[in-house]
């Protein structure tokens, strides 16, 4: 089938960008969305044009590299699906698709669809860990963790750090990403001793990076390929209040 694409092209952070139309022919319904881009890029290279730069790695929805806003929706229309797992069988011959990068001041654009998401690493560095030096751990079964609690923690730990939550959020807020790590670790007994310091520092860092505030639009949860629940954001706020009151 043939797909009419409009793709955001921008040579560099300080260069102007624009949507450029492309007609991609010979798209197979079994192709993934990124494979359609591979196909287009091959054609572009052979025509002597510059291919479209985009990030991807695992192509199975777990590394969090891929980031395309497809017709106004980060990762596209399928529920719980990263764009690398989106397949062309959901489109019809002749469909028009607009593709843009994540847009947020805290995710500066590098080139075309590639953005810089290192702000997320710095948020984790501010406290998204348990301080346990290698070798100092006790036997793994010394602390029992209620299964239901562990399962709930896992739901938050499943975050792949893709940034779709920020991209989807009308405020460009990183609340869902930040809260996912806070929720995971504060639900675990192992994370208990550092919980106050963790939430305060991570929130501080999130502010510093220039992400917007969370106004509870919940768009992040809808776009999250791992369907991380915004109840994590509520939990983060409870943790935060506890931390403030106990200081």
């Amino acid at each position, binding site marked *: 089938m043939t797909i009419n694409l409009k793709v955001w092209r921008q040579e560099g952070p300080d260069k102007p960008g624009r949507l450029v139309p492309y007609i991609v022919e010979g798209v197979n319904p079994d192709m993934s969305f990124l494979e359609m881009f591979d196909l287009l890029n091959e054609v572009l290279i052979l025509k002597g044009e510059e291919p479209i730069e985009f990030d991807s790695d695992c192509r199975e929805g777990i590394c969090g590299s891929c980031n395309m806003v497809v017709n106004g929706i980060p990762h596209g229309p399928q529920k719980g699906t990263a764009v690398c797992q989106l397949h062309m069988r959901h489109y019809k011959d002749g469909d028009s698709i607009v593709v843009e990068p994540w847009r947020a001041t805290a995710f500066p654009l590098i080139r075309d669809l590639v953005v810089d998401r290192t702000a997320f690493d710095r948020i984790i560095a501010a406290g998204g860990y348990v301080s*346990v030096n290698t070798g100092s751990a006790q036997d793994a079964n010394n602390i029992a963790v209620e299964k239901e609690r562990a399962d709930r923690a896992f739901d938050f730990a499943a975050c792949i750090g893709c940034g779709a939550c920020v991209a989807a959020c009308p405020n460009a807020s990183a609340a869902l990403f930040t809260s996912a790590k806070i929720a995971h670790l504060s639900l675990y007994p192992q994370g208990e001793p550092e919980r106050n310091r963790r939430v305060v520092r991570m929130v501080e860092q999130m502010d510093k990076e220039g992400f917007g505030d969370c106004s509870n639009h919940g768009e992040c949860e809808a776009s999250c390929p791992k369907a991380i629940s915004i109840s994590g954001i509520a939990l983060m706020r409870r943790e935060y209040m506890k931390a403030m009151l106990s200081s």
Partner: protein
Amino acid sequence: MSENIITDPMLDSKAPSGKLEEKWSNFLNTTKLVNPNNKRKHTVLVVGTGLAGASAAASLAELGYNVRSFCIQDSPRRAHSIAAQGGINAAKNYPDDGDSVWRLFYDTIKGGDYRARESNVYRLAQISNSIIDQCVAQGVPFAREYGGLLANRSFGGAQVSRTFYARGQTGQQLLLGAYQAMERMIDAGKVTQFSRREMLDLVVVDGKARGIITRNLVTGELERHMGDAVLLCTGGYGNVYYLSTNAKNSNVTAAWRCHRRGAYFANPCFTQIHPTCIPVSGDYQSKLTLMSESLRNDGRVWVPKKPGDSRKPDQIPEEDRDYYLERKYPSFGNLVPRDVASRNAKEMVDHEKGVGETKMAVYLDFADAIKRVGEHVISERYGNLFEMYEKITGDDPYKVPMRIYPAVHYTMGGLWVDYNLMSTIPGLFVLGEANFSDHGANRLGASALMQGLADGYFVISHTLGNYIASTELPKVDTARPEFADAENESRARLTTLLSIKGEKTVTQFHQELGHIMWDYVGMARNREGLGHAMTEITRLREEFGRNLRVPGSPDTLNKNLEFAGRVADYMELGELMARDALQREESCGGHFREEYQTEEGEAQRDDEKFGYVAAWEYTGANQTPVVHKENLEFEFVKLTQRSYK
């Protein structure tokens, strides 16, 4: 090439003496230590942030070393380890089903078809338990029982339940644990992270690894980094086959450049082909997806009895189906090890019994299991895998049997290292999948994660300390000619790639290379095919040098340029893999030479002649490499022929 094995003096494994169970503690008791105050005077370059790299960076920084960490992706958390699904082994014996350090060691050595070093594998089994402790303390959400304690499951090649898992995302959770530990050290100022960097060369000064050249993938700048040691944790090279379950950025470049600088490459032909992957659907396909091995616990593998039968699966009656694994291996049935299952699937397809549109697949059928235990139980066990399968293929595996086919998954070969994980270049250590150390000719499920973390968390801190404490490491600075030379060579290589301006894209070359490798250096190999592969690769390399087209410029983000460099290295590696496979005139583990099989068509080892590690030395461009042999001595286990009948 089949003369008696002479142990190469260059390849001293440096395994400590003593009883198997005492070797590691003997090492620890006698190792030289670095004074805590001196540790901060040393800089260690850690290339790669997968399980091996991230855990090494974190542990070394905790001890006080200054660490510089590098990765290709935009964040260290995206290293390929993130994609591992099934689990991680440890000899905890929580289920009390008879597991022990010895048994884990023995299963691993046997699973590897007796082509790994006893001392290393035993150490791995000893350390396995501490890994679980460490990860749990970090908050890794392993699966738990209702009582709140850790759950285990069983995996191929073992008769005990020793696999710890975190849903179908074990690699992700373990990597995030290590990544977070590393980020903590970044916050503490002990680790400096360099993301979107590709290592293009190793800098050797006075015979020791003292630095690396990286390309900043955003600006294209070449950068020089100096250190007292280099840790290569850059993963496996499965992408030499173009299609594999590896992530798109997985590559051999870092390891290959070290090889060209003098590090020996060991057993390059040992690759693992995983039996249960989603089959290729067309030429456009960029990557293959693994379906966890655990599916074979409930799924039955079959093909039509009649070649060329193109009826839909539900129209093929029971009597026209061949459940070939159950037929041929009555005692293990669908649960035979990976290499056996893969080879049999290929055999069926070769006999034109393949299914699906491409005829390059076999069925994995859950109808009986659903009838037996109900759809909800199956969905509980494999729900997320079924969903993933449906996303990719559009078929519902609850209704139609899955189509599966083997795919390249893991590479047991890698840079040769001694017991200290040090390569033949002093100061260059190799960890994780990038080295060859622990899995012999075939890796058991759930033991790559174990090895990566053992190397990174628990081995390297001691062996590196020993090296630093016992080695003269005079200050060098990056203005030295060795750095300049390496940088210039890297630049020249990039300029060449861009200047060919031919008619074929990098992907086209990579696909072609992949076809050659898959057809002739894949699941079944023979002398003629391997020879053919070598000529074909030589031809392809020649064409690459003349007809490659890389768009864009060197001083911006340019993924085609990155890939071009990697494919160039893959072609050289591919040739070496074929050469290595040709040299190994036996079948063992993932290496199946058609000339060497038993009457029933099973792999036939030749311990007498090939009980060694083949470590290749690079002798210059277009020169024939030289093979060095490390004799594998089995002091503690008895070698037996594997049988799964």
